[in-house]
């Protein structure tokens, strides 16, 4: 299933370098992902600036952006690392925040991507925005190479802006604070869009909000874990009581 020597030769870099036949997909991928890239740049700059403002070195922003590549958890990771949280707590938190990616496998068109290296990179760089772009109605006809280019452009803009933000962050005067609100605003926007997609299923956001408030009061030290656990349990209980019995226990 390997595509070309040019691709298999680049094992050390998990970045697909399409052979001449695929070059034409790059401009199309760029046009389709321009909106998401524009969203990544200010967030990446804010992430990088926050990394250095929190006392971490600039290269850590690049490392996290290039390897972990999960924007929302990376913001949370800054706080966990500066608080010297145990690695097990970091693993558990990243699991809970990123477990939503499990569901992306149900519809992300990985079968259209050829080559083991390409498929590997596609799963590695499967961020929320890549999933949304690749599963939209108008992406039905996208060849695999365009999906890979789109993912690479998102990855590159995130890592590049994170490093730029970390290097420029030291130029921000110390009395300018509040950049961390970019994360809150991101979640507010994503929550509004996701709730709108539920089309009137109001109990779901209400259950989530109650889970968060309950976790805040009952388990203030482990609010995130407790909230996700309460919410998952509430959803399962709701599914059972509404009569839609699961086909798997």
């Amino acid at each position: 299933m390997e595509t070309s020597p040019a691709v298999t030769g680049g094992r050390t870099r998990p970045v697909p370098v399409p052979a001449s036949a695929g070059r034409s997909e790059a401009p199309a991928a760029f046009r389709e992902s321009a909106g998401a890239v524009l969203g990544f740049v200010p967030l990446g700059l804010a992430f990088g600036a926050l990394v250095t403002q929190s006392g971490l070195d600039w290269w850590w922003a690049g490392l996290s952006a290039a390897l972990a590549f999960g924007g929302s958890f990376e913001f949370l990771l800054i706080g966990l690392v500066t608080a010297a949280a145990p690695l097990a707590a970091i693993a558990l938190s990243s699991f809970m925040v990123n477990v939503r990616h499990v569901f992306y496998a149900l519809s992300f068109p990985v079968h259209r991507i050829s080559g083991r290296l390409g498929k590997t990179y596609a799963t590695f760089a499967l961020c929320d925005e890549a999933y949304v772009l690749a599963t939209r109605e108008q992406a039905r006809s996208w060849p695999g190479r365009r999906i890979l280019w789109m993912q690479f452009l998102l990855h590159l803009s995130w890592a590049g802006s994170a490093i730029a933000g970390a290097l420029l962050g030291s130029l921000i005067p110390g009395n300018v604070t509040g950049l961390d609100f970019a994360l809150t605003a991101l979640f507010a926007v994503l929550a509004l869009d996701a709730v709108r997609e539920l089309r009137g299923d109001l109990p779901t956001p209400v259950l989530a909000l109650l889970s968060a408030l309950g976790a805040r009061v009952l388990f203030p030290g482990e609010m995130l874990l407790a909230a996700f656990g309460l919410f998952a349990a509430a959803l399962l209980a709701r599914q059972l009581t509404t009569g839609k019995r699961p086909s798997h226990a």
Partner: protein
Amino acid sequence: MPDPRYAVAAVLVTTAVTWGLRALPFAALTPLRASRTVRYLSARMPAGVMVILLAYCLRDLSLTEKRSLAPLVALAVTVGLHLWRRNALLSILGGTAVHVILASTVFAH
């Protein structure tokens, strides 16, 4: 700066968990697709997770402190902009700009 080895290990742990969650389900796809529970959860989890993460970001808000007005006003601006224009970039930039201005000036501590 915390111990660099620890800071790197934290990123590697996150990378392993995140990549595992992104890649492994493709191998276990067939039974997952048949599960009604998974489909039920997958339709509702994203919205709920985002609501929880938003609440988590605001967990230290104290309604008795004047300082809390900065994030509350910025949140109202973000939500208002998003309901009005539905442009994610505009909403995030607008809300963050309002927060930086308020937190750095009027509500500076």
